[in-house]
């Protein structure tokens, strides 16, 4: 189980592949891999968005993400999980977050991935500040509920 905070752009597909290939003890054990990638849009709440700055609380972020992954692993038989999250200045089309989960069967992979992602959205200490095309800046006030 790995949690990573990235200050530079990352390729979520390469991260997933590298993690899977490096985990030789998983070979033959997993039948399902569920990958979620969150990517920055160039629009939000009716406005054109030029860029975004993602602030975080170093140390607490990793602690909370590790807790969330551990919770998912207690609820579902997770063989392995990888969480990567960007911080710093981000441009539209750049990946923000990757959650990959490996399990024996697909139901557990979907459910554990969704749990990690929704818990991350409500508990991991990250904050987004958007830069609009108009040059105005605004903090996002709260995340929406992903189940609505």
């Amino acid at each position, binding site marked *: 189980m790995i949690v990573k905070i990235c200050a530079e752009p990352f390729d979520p597909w390469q991260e997933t592949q590298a993690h899977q290939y490096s985990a030789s003890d998983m070979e033959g054990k997993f039948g399902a891999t569920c990958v979620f990638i969150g990517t920055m849009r160039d629009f939000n709440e009716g406005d054109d968005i030029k860029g975004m700055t993602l602030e975080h609380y170093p140390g607490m972020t990793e602690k909370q993400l590790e807790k969330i992954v551990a919770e998912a692993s207690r609820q579902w038989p997770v063989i392995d999980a990888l969480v990567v999250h960007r911080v710093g200045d981000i441009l539209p089309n750049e990946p*923000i*977050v990757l959650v990959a989960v490996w399990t024996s069967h697909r139901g557990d992979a979907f459910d554990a991935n969704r749990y990690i992602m929704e818990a991350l959205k409500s508990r991991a*200490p990250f*904050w987004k500040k958007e830069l609009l095309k108009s040059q105005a800046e605004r903090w996002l006030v709260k995340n929406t509920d992903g189940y609505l």
Partner: protein
Amino acid sequence: MSIKVRYFASLKESVGRSEDSLEFAGLTTVSDVWCRANPNKPLPSNSLAAVNMDYVELDSAVKDGDEVAFFPPVTGG
């Protein structure tokens, strides 16, 4: 010893600083920490608090050497 106080995101901008260091004497709860560090400025009602990087309620106890953080709702992912 003392209590280290940290602020993040819009709350950091609103208090105008990212950190404070407070003498521990006289502090009992997380709420006391906010009031001593920010007299006459109420904590915004949607704020979250953490002690030593775990979420806590405002009436949670603090002890000497703790790191207490205040921040707005999180918006990552």
